[in-house]
Protein backbone atom coordinates (compact mmCIF):
# COMPACT_ATOMS: atom_id res chain seq x y z
CA UNK A 1 0.00 0.00 0.00
CA UNK A 2 1.39 3.35 -0.93
CA UNK A 3 1.20 6.18 1.43
CA UNK A 4 0.42 9.74 0.97
CA UNK A 5 3.71 11.61 0.70
CA UNK A 6 4.30 14.13 3.38
CA UNK A 7 5.14 16.89 0.91
CA UNK A 8 1.96 16.44 -1.07
CA UNK A 9 -0.11 16.83 2.07
CA UNK A 10 1.68 19.95 3.03
CA UNK A 11 1.47 21.40 -0.44
CA UNK A 12 -2.24 20.76 -0.52
CA UNK A 13 -2.57 22.50 2.85
CA UNK A 14 -0.55 25.41 1.50
CA UNK A 15 -2.66 25.68 -1.62
CA UNK A 16 -5.86 25.65 0.32
CA UNK A 17 -4.50 28.15 2.78
CA UNK A 18 -3.45 30.49 0.03
CA UNK A 19 -6.80 30.19 -1.67
CA UNK A 20 -8.36 31.23 1.60
CA UNK A 21 -5.91 34.08 1.78
CA UNK A 22 -6.84 35.21 -1.70
CA UNK A 23 -10.40 35.14 -0.60
CA UNK A 24 -9.70 37.37 2.40
CA UNK A 25 -7.69 39.78 0.33
CA UNK A 26 -10.06 40.00 -2.60
CA UNK A 27 -13.52 39.79 -1.19
CA UNK A 28 -15.03 42.85 0.39
CA UNK A 29 -18.13 41.15 1.62
CA UNK A 30 -17.58 40.32 5.24
CA UNK A 31 -19.39 36.98 4.99
CA UNK A 32 -17.02 35.82 2.30
CA UNK A 33 -14.08 36.99 4.34
CA UNK A 34 -15.30 34.92 7.25
CA UNK A 35 -15.73 31.97 4.95
CA UNK A 36 -12.21 32.42 3.62
CA UNK A 37 -10.94 32.53 7.16
CA UNK A 38 -12.60 29.20 7.74
CA UNK A 39 -10.81 27.81 4.70
CA UNK A 40 -7.51 29.02 6.06
CA UNK A 41 -8.18 27.53 9.48
CA UNK A 42 -9.11 24.27 7.91
CA UNK A 43 -6.00 24.27 5.78
CA UNK A 44 -3.79 24.78 8.79
CA UNK A 45 -5.63 21.95 10.45
CA UNK A 46 -4.83 19.82 7.47
CA UNK A 47 -1.16 20.63 7.89
CA UNK A 48 -1.32 19.51 11.47
CA UNK A 49 -3.01 16.26 10.63
CA UNK A 50 -0.47 15.57 7.89
CA UNK A 51 2.29 16.08 10.35
CA UNK A 52 0.53 13.88 12.82
CA UNK A 53 0.39 11.13 10.22
CA UNK A 54 4.01 11.62 9.33
CA UNK A 55 5.28 11.10 12.87
CA UNK A 56 2.54 8.81 14.03
CA UNK A 57 1.72 11.05 16.94
CA UNK A 58 -1.75 12.09 18.14
CA UNK A 59 -0.71 15.66 18.95
CA UNK A 60 -1.44 16.98 15.49
CA UNK A 61 -4.98 15.68 15.70
CA UNK A 62 -5.36 17.17 19.14
CA UNK A 63 -4.34 20.49 17.69
CA UNK A 64 -6.94 20.06 14.98
CA UNK A 65 -9.57 19.61 17.62
CA UNK A 66 -8.50 22.78 19.32
CA UNK A 67 -8.62 24.60 16.02
CA UNK A 68 -12.06 23.27 15.50
CA UNK A 69 -13.23 24.52 18.85
CA UNK A 70 -11.69 27.85 18.19
CA UNK A 71 -13.31 28.04 14.75
CA UNK A 72 -16.66 27.25 16.23
CA UNK A 73 -16.38 29.99 18.79
CA UNK A 74 -15.08 32.42 16.24
CA UNK A 75 -17.85 31.70 13.81
CA UNK A 76 -20.54 32.08 16.42
CA UNK A 77 -19.27 35.45 17.60
CA UNK A 78 -18.32 36.53 14.10
CA UNK A 79 -21.71 35.76 12.68
CA UNK A 80 -23.41 37.55 15.54
CA UNK A 81 -21.24 40.55 14.80
CA UNK A 82 -22.06 40.35 11.11
CA UNK A 83 -25.71 40.49 11.93
CA UNK A 84 -25.26 43.49 14.15
CA UNK A 85 -23.16 45.22 11.54
CA UNK A 86 -25.72 44.57 8.89
CA UNK A 87 -28.46 45.91 11.12
CA UNK A 88 -26.58 49.05 11.87
CA UNK A 89 -24.89 49.89 8.64
CA UNK A 90 -27.03 48.09 6.12
CA UNK A 91 -23.97 46.92 4.33
CA UNK A 92 -21.45 44.15 4.53
CA UNK A 93 -18.73 45.94 2.62
CA UNK A 94 -15.67 46.13 4.87
CA UNK A 95 -14.13 49.00 2.98
CA UNK A 96 -16.94 51.27 4.00
CA UNK A 97 -16.75 50.05 7.55
CA UNK A 98 -13.49 51.81 8.33
CA UNK A 99 -14.30 53.79 11.41
CA UNK A 100 -11.19 52.46 13.04
CA UNK A 101 -9.08 54.51 10.69
CA UNK A 102 -6.17 56.04 12.61
Amino acid at each position, binding site marked *: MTFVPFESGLILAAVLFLLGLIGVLVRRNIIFMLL*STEIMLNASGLAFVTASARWMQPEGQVMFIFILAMAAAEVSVGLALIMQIYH*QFKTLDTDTLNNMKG
Partner: protein
Amino acid sequence: MLTIFYLSAVVAVVSTMMVITRKEAVHALLYLIVSLLAISIIFFALGAPFIAALEVIIYAGAIMVLFIFVVMMLNLGRESIQQERQLLKPRMWFGPVILTLILIVEFIILFSKIRGQNYHALSISPKVVGVSLFSTYLLGVELSAMLLMAGIVGAYYLGKGKKRIMHRYLANTGSDSKAKGETK
Protein backbone atom coordinates in the same frame (compact mmCIF):
# COMPACT_ATOMS: atom_id res chain seq x y z
CA MET B 1 -5.02 5.29 -1.28
CA LEU B 2 -2.81 7.68 -3.18
CA THR B 3 -5.33 7.94 -5.98
CA ILE B 4 -8.07 8.76 -3.54
CA PHE B 5 -5.86 11.39 -2.02
CA TYR B 6 -5.08 13.10 -5.28
CA LEU B 7 -8.62 12.88 -6.50
CA SER B 8 -10.08 14.41 -3.40
CA ALA B 9 -7.27 16.98 -3.34
CA VAL B 10 -8.30 18.12 -6.81
CA VAL B 11 -11.92 18.26 -5.70
CA ALA B 12 -10.97 20.24 -2.61
CA VAL B 13 -8.89 22.76 -4.54
CA VAL B 14 -11.44 23.26 -7.28
CA SER B 15 -14.35 23.63 -4.90
CA THR B 16 -12.39 26.05 -2.74
CA MET B 17 -11.68 28.12 -5.82
CA MET B 18 -15.37 28.16 -6.49
CA VAL B 19 -15.99 29.31 -2.91
CA ILE B 20 -13.91 32.41 -3.25
CA THR B 21 -15.23 33.36 -6.63
CA ARG B 22 -18.98 32.94 -6.08
CA LYS B 23 -21.14 35.97 -5.93
CA GLU B 24 -24.01 34.42 -4.12
CA ALA B 25 -23.28 33.48 -0.54
CA VAL B 26 -25.32 30.29 -0.51
CA HIS B 27 -23.52 28.94 -3.55
CA ALA B 28 -20.21 29.64 -1.96
CA LEU B 29 -21.31 27.87 1.19
CA LEU B 30 -22.35 24.80 -0.71
CA TYR B 31 -19.01 24.70 -2.47
CA LEU B 32 -17.31 25.04 0.85
CA ILE B 33 -19.19 22.07 2.15
CA VAL B 34 -17.98 20.08 -0.85
CA SER B 35 -14.46 21.21 -0.14
CA LEU B 36 -14.74 20.21 3.50
CA LEU B 37 -16.06 16.80 2.62
CA ALA B 38 -13.17 16.29 0.22
CA ILE B 39 -10.75 17.25 2.95
CA SER B 40 -12.41 14.85 5.30
CA ILE B 41 -11.65 12.09 2.80
CA ILE B 42 -8.07 13.27 2.75
CA PHE B 43 -7.98 13.01 6.51
CA PHE B 44 -9.16 9.50 6.22
CA ALA B 45 -6.46 8.80 3.69
CA LEU B 46 -3.96 10.23 6.09
CA GLY B 47 -5.04 7.80 8.71
CA ALA B 48 -7.05 10.07 10.91
CA PRO B 49 -10.57 8.68 10.90
CA PHE B 50 -11.65 10.47 14.00
CA ILE B 51 -10.70 13.83 12.56
CA ALA B 52 -12.40 12.94 9.29
CA ALA B 53 -15.57 12.30 11.20
CA LEU B 54 -15.28 15.55 13.13
CA GLU B 55 -14.69 17.42 9.90
CA VAL B 56 -17.91 16.14 8.48
CA ILE B 57 -19.99 16.50 11.61
CA ILE B 58 -18.80 19.76 13.02
CA TYR B 59 -17.35 21.68 10.12
CA ALA B 60 -19.50 20.64 7.26
CA GLY B 61 -22.45 20.02 9.53
CA ALA B 62 -22.67 22.47 12.37
CA ILE B 63 -20.61 25.45 11.37
CA MET B 64 -21.75 25.59 7.79
CA VAL B 65 -25.34 25.28 8.87
CA LEU B 66 -24.73 28.24 11.14
CA PHE B 67 -23.51 30.17 8.12
CA ILE B 68 -26.49 29.21 6.09
CA PHE B 69 -28.82 30.30 8.85
CA VAL B 70 -27.18 33.67 9.05
CA VAL B 71 -27.22 34.16 5.32
CA MET B 72 -30.88 33.31 5.32
CA MET B 73 -31.59 35.60 8.24
CA LEU B 74 -29.87 38.45 6.52
CA ASN B 75 -32.12 37.78 3.62
CA LEU B 76 -29.80 39.14 1.00
CA GLY B 77 -31.69 39.57 -2.20
CA ARG B 78 -30.96 40.29 -5.82
CA GLU B 79 -29.45 43.64 -5.16
CA SER B 80 -26.81 42.08 -2.98
CA ILE B 81 -25.60 39.99 -5.88
CA GLN B 82 -25.64 43.10 -7.97
CA GLN B 83 -23.64 44.87 -5.34
CA GLU B 84 -21.26 41.94 -5.10
CA ARG B 85 -20.65 42.23 -8.78
CA GLN B 86 -19.67 45.83 -8.37
CA LEU B 87 -17.41 45.10 -5.48
CA LEU B 88 -15.64 42.26 -7.18
CA LYS B 89 -13.72 43.85 -9.98
CA PRO B 90 -11.34 41.73 -12.02
CA ARG B 91 -8.33 43.94 -11.38
CA MET B 92 -8.67 43.40 -7.67
CA TRP B 93 -7.52 39.84 -8.16
CA PHE B 94 -4.25 40.86 -9.55
CA GLY B 95 -2.29 41.82 -6.46
CA PRO B 96 -3.40 39.05 -4.12
CA VAL B 97 -2.86 36.41 -6.74
CA ILE B 98 0.67 37.60 -7.42
CA LEU B 99 1.42 37.58 -3.70
CA THR B 100 0.01 34.13 -3.23
CA LEU B 101 1.82 32.81 -6.27
CA ILE B 102 5.08 33.98 -4.79
CA LEU B 103 4.10 32.35 -1.54
CA ILE B 104 3.16 29.04 -3.11
CA VAL B 105 6.39 28.93 -5.03
CA GLU B 106 8.25 29.57 -1.85
CA PHE B 107 6.27 26.92 -0.01
CA ILE B 108 6.96 24.40 -2.69
CA ILE B 109 10.64 25.16 -2.57
CA LEU B 110 10.55 24.79 1.18
CA PHE B 111 8.63 21.53 1.15
CA SER B 112 10.70 20.03 -1.61
CA LYS B 113 13.65 20.28 0.71
CA ILE B 114 11.99 17.78 2.97
CA ARG B 115 13.07 14.44 1.73
CA GLY B 116 10.31 11.92 2.05
CA GLN B 117 10.98 9.29 4.65
CA ASN B 118 9.25 6.02 5.07
CA TYR B 119 6.72 5.79 7.75
CA HIS B 120 4.04 3.43 8.81
CA ALA B 121 0.73 4.39 7.51
CA LEU B 122 -1.11 3.17 10.52
CA SER B 123 -4.19 5.05 11.41
CA ILE B 124 -4.23 6.73 14.74
CA SER B 125 -7.27 5.50 16.53
CA PRO B 126 -9.73 7.86 18.20
CA LYS B 127 -8.83 6.23 21.45
CA VAL B 128 -5.26 7.38 21.27
CA VAL B 129 -6.42 10.86 20.44
CA GLY B 130 -8.91 10.83 23.26
CA VAL B 131 -6.37 9.63 25.80
CA SER B 132 -3.96 12.26 24.67
CA LEU B 133 -6.65 14.93 24.88
CA PHE B 134 -7.81 14.09 28.33
CA SER B 135 -4.48 13.43 29.89
CA THR B 136 -1.69 15.49 28.40
CA TYR B 137 -3.81 18.28 26.99
CA LEU B 138 -6.46 18.44 29.66
CA LEU B 139 -5.69 22.08 30.33
CA GLY B 140 -6.09 22.86 26.65
CA VAL B 141 -9.44 21.14 26.63
CA GLU B 142 -10.58 23.14 29.59
CA LEU B 143 -9.41 26.32 27.97
CA SER B 144 -11.18 25.60 24.73
CA ALA B 145 -14.27 24.77 26.75
CA MET B 146 -14.07 28.19 28.28
CA LEU B 147 -13.50 29.69 24.85
CA LEU B 148 -16.62 28.03 23.55
CA MET B 149 -18.48 29.24 26.58
CA ALA B 150 -17.31 32.73 25.93
CA GLY B 151 -18.27 32.37 22.30
CA ILE B 152 -21.79 31.30 23.27
CA VAL B 153 -22.20 34.10 25.76
CA GLY B 154 -20.78 36.59 23.31
CA ALA B 155 -22.96 35.47 20.52
CA TYR B 156 -25.98 35.57 22.77
CA TYR B 157 -25.19 39.02 23.97
CA LEU B 158 -24.54 40.35 20.49
CA GLY B 159 -27.55 38.63 19.14
CA LYS B 160 -29.99 39.99 21.70
CA GLY B 161 -30.51 42.90 19.42
CA LYS B 162 -32.75 44.83 21.78
CA LYS B 163 -30.22 47.48 22.53
CA ARG B 164 -28.00 48.86 19.82
CA ILE B 165 -24.44 48.09 20.66
CA MET B 166 -22.51 51.11 19.70
CA HIS B 167 -19.15 52.48 20.28
CA ARG B 168 -19.51 55.61 22.36
CA TYR B 169 -17.91 57.60 19.59
CA LEU B 170 -20.47 56.34 17.11
CA ALA B 171 -23.22 56.87 19.66
CA ASN B 172 -22.17 60.46 20.03
CA THR B 173 -21.99 61.18 16.36
CA GLY B 174 -25.28 59.42 15.92
CA SER B 175 -26.99 61.51 18.55
CA ASP B 176 -25.39 64.60 17.08
CA SER B 177 -26.85 63.96 13.70
CA LYS B 178 -30.13 63.21 15.35
CA ALA B 179 -30.03 66.48 17.18
CA LYS B 180 -29.24 68.25 13.96
CA GLY B 181 -32.10 66.57 12.31
CA GLU B 182 -34.44 67.72 15.04
CA THR B 183 -33.38 71.28 14.75
CA LYS B 184 -34.10 71.21 11.05
